[in-house]
């Protein structure tokens, strides 16, 4: 114990645990008299509207690199099933263009919240039926009904299908129906079509959302794992600057057959 850097450990623990505590007791947080009251819509739910970004911090970006998952609490390396960890290593070393983002595809969940939004913001528009998230990054978007309606059948998408509900003041989003092609980061961490994500958005003060995403994928990971992020209202920029990625791209040679290239050179 005496060899531990106590402040660092304590800091890490607080950083890792605080959002989880927040997520579990949103009412207590909202009632915390030390924080300014959170804005609410006419229906009483917290008002999540505004322009937001993932506040990962420049130091963390430098340390982890732009492409890595840099979220407190994420167990790295991720708990892959046997063999799949080797697949990840191989792709990372020898097949980086397997990354769908290299082909300008929408990133999937939670990558769209975690990665590009540290440098490109997203805007939330909310009414009593939907929370709609419009991302600057590759004009990705998520339309999230608040009625906890069931996921559709026979539907598969890069961003899956999102269904939301309110648990107290926390907006909980269940995401399934993924197409199985997404990577989680540029480090070749990946999921397949059995990915299932539960996101929690808790407005802890007018300018801060405590975000968590629990990822389970029984055919990729040995157990579910959770990332925690702090999303900050963007005060330096007032709106989205539309960003398109793929104009003129001709990257077909980089595609493997699994990405839809029947004549892949990777076979």
């Amino acid at each position, binding site marked *: 114990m005496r060899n531990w850097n106590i402040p660092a450990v304590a800091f890490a623990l607080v950083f890792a645990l605080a959002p989880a505590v927040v997520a579990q007791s949103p009412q207590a947080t909202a009632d915390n008299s030390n924080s300014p009251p959170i804005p609410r819509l006419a229906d009483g739910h917290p008002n999540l509207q505004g322009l937001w970004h993932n506040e990962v911090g420049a130091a963390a970006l430098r340390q982890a690199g732009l492409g890595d998952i840099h979220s407190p609490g994420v167990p790295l390396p991720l708990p892959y099933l046997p063999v799949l960890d080797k697949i990840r290593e191989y792709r990372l070393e020898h097949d980086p263009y397997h990354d769908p983002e290299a082909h300008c595809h929408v990133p999937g969940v939670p990558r769209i919240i975690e990665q590009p939004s540290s440098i490109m913001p997203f805007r939330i528009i909310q009414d009593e039926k939907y929370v709609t998230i419009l991302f600057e990054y590759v004009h*990705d978007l998520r339309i999230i009904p608040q009625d906890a309606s069931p996921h559709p059948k026979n539907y*598969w998408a890069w961003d899956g299908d999102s269904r939301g509900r309110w648990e107290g003041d926390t907006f909980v989003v269940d995401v399934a129906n993924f197409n199985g092609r997404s990577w989680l980061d540029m480090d070749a961490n990946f999921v397949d079509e059995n990915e299932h994500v539960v996101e929690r958005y808790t407005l802890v003060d007018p300018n801060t959302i405590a975000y968590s995403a629990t990822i389970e994928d029984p055919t990729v990971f040995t157990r579910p794992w959770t990332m925690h992020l702090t999303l900050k209202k963007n005060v330096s920029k007032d709106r989205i600057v539309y960003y398109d990625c793929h104009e003129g791209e001709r990257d077909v040679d980089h595609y493997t057959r699994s990405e839809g290239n029947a004549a892949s050179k990777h076979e």
Partner: protein
Amino acid sequence: MSISIAIPRAAGQNAAKSYSPPRLSDGTPDFRGIWQARTTAYVNVEGHSAQNGIGKAESIIVDPPDGKIPYLPDALKQRGDNYKNREAADPASNCFQAGVPRAVYLPTPFQIFQSPGNLAIVYTDNHAYRIVDPSTIPHDDGIDFFMGDSRGHWEGDTLVVDVTDLGDQTWLDETGNFHSDQLHVIERYTLLGPDTMQYEARLEDPKTFSKPWTIRFLLYRDKEPGARITEDECLEGADGRWHHLSPSDPRAVLHHDYEAELAAAAKNLAGQGKP
């Protein structure tokens, strides 16, 4: 409703404007919902004969009265070239976002989201969206976007959207009707009833057209229970062209055999003389 400003309606609009739409808490008309055009103007805004499963269509151009785009002579020639090369030259074949107004009459639905102070239009096609910020915020200068830069204000119960910063990388239809980066579009959205909306757009582009011209058609609400906008993502295929493939069943294309993938990887590396 205090913020609605009554302005005499412009000439040329039809008379069925007595409908009083439902309103948001701030008094603005409620345009929320999923909408879609039934016109097949996406083939040719000037109208087209019956073809390949699509019925004949009249021009959606209401001004000039002949229903033809008032091209400048060089632009008319360019339109002809576009038509000849349309399959490869149409920007949509690169999965570029459709632009304005083409996105509005595509054969796929779009959804309007609204809350006091916020309005966004989300299109199925290529997951394009437009945020219609209030016209009190000036347009961005010196930058072009596929879907332009939209600013809205209310004239009575009509939503008027001023669209600039449109580039020259979008067309108006599959026939090769086109515009330059000087295109300026003024759109007017008016609810005619609970499930019907009139769309009108005036296009001016002094580099391409001899005078401004106007299109008008109806949009219809999708009342199917559980209707929603589905993801539309393009994927570049083996032929080097982009195809609308999402949503697609992963079981049809993904065949996870990680042991085999590793074995193939090892063989591949061995062939390259790597460990």
